[in-house]
């Protein structure tokens, strides 16, 4: 299995699946933790941090194993939030803790949720975001992670600086939805396939 999309009942996996299919990949949507054995893993997801953490829990041993063996793992939106330790959205609930830091509500005077297209700015070299500096991506969220380590790869502006993407080792995260970001989003998913 080349590419697995983790289906942990947090939103539909179909758009992510369709986007990878469109790019010629053969993704498998994995519903059972024991089936999660791919070379690359994608954790999509929309919804609240607490529900996400609960539903993802059975998959965490396999995901951790993949990370340890340096397989590329991509978290999208909530999927990225779950890499962090905790979230203001669901106090008291633990995330995976792959990255140190907390997910917090965006401190901005702008309207929330932050819904729409916003251009990303590259802060740190990372193969996932190659060729995408300045491209608008589709965001829909009210929370974003504040990492306590130097892993921010791209940011966007929404009345304040917003974490738009992170990477360290083989672990990648995007706050925006590449599967809903037109050609630029497809380019990012292509970059992931090429890792």
């Amino acid at each position, binding site marked *: 299995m080349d590419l697995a999309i983790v289906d942990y009942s947090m*939103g*539909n996996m*179909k*758009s992510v699946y*369709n*986007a990878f*299919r*469109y790019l010629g990949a053969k993704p498998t949507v994995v519903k059972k933790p024991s089936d999660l054995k791919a070379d690359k893993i994608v954790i999509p997801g*929309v*919804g*609240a941090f607490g529900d996400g953490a609960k539903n993802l829990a059975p998959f965490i041993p396999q995901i951790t194993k993949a990370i340890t063996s340096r397989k590329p793992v991509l978290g999208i939106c909530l999927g990225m939030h779950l890499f962090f330790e905790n979230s203001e959205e669901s106090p008291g609930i633990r995330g995976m803790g792959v990255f140190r830091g907390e997910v917090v509500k965006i401190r901005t005077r*702008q*309207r*929330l*949720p932050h*819904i*729409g*297209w*916003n*251009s990303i700015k590259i802060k740190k070299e990372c193969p996932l975001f190659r060729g995408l500096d300045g491209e*608008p991506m*589709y965001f*829909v*969220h*009210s929370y974003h992670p504040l990492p306590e380590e130097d892993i921010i790869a791209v940011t966007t*502006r*929404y009345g304040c600086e917003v974490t738009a993407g992170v990477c360290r080792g083989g672990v990648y995260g995007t706050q925006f*939805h590449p*599967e*809903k*970001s*037109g*050609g630029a*989003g*497809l380019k990012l998913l292509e970059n992931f396939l090429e890792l």
Partner: protein
Amino acid sequence: MFCKRIIPCLDCDLAVPRGRVVKGIEFKQIKYAGVPWKLAKKYYEDGADEIVFLDITASHERRGTMVEVIERTSEDVFVPLTVGGGINTIEDARRVFNAGADKVAINTAAIKNPQLVNKLAKYFGSQACVVAIDAKRRYITSLKEAKGKTVVRTPEGSCWYECSIYGGRRFTGLDAIKWAEEVERRGAGEILLTSMDRDGTTDGYDIQLTKVLSEKVRLPVIASGGCGKPEHIYEVFKKTKVTAALAASIFHYNIFGIGNVKKYLAEKGITVRI
């Protein structure tokens, strides 16, 4: 740079196989514009930031057709898809989300059962719950007449705005601006605001309605109803706080392509995704 969104709307008649896109004038006369998923793909390629499908079929036997439309569209259209019309329950919403939709827009169902807004927000997240408001001007001659309503001054006279349901066929007595504030409290993620007075007229958006409502709520508001030329979109972005503009007929009949509209807006200094 945060971009203003341009959203084409496909009013879908699902009473024929695979459905067809139609456009009414002031919510009535009907013209045909094409196959939904084909038009959606064309708009995506032209630079649409999002696509809205509105099921205007009165009967509920056609739900399966909308699922098919969304499934086919989501195979090669990679921008957010919203489905409105015919969403009355959590199950209805789940069906279109599973087909590949990202958001549902609810109007009649929300007014008849406001708890549905809370439930959609809870189960699928606020971002997936768009409340559509179809607002009609009710002109007044004295303030006493509009007791308890939000009165808006327009060039045509003072009025309040009444919410309509069932695709403009029934009125509710509900103040559109107060209703917007209520759905915000209930957890809606966006408001799709349609002026019934302007819909299908190509006279431009109802600036007064859109301005007042978009200042009363903190949610993103999508302006709808009346767009007849790119200047109307520029005007609504310049004069109100909406973050998106929806239009149908100017795109359907190739009067102005989405790409050209965006180019025009960019030249006028509006930030759009090109």
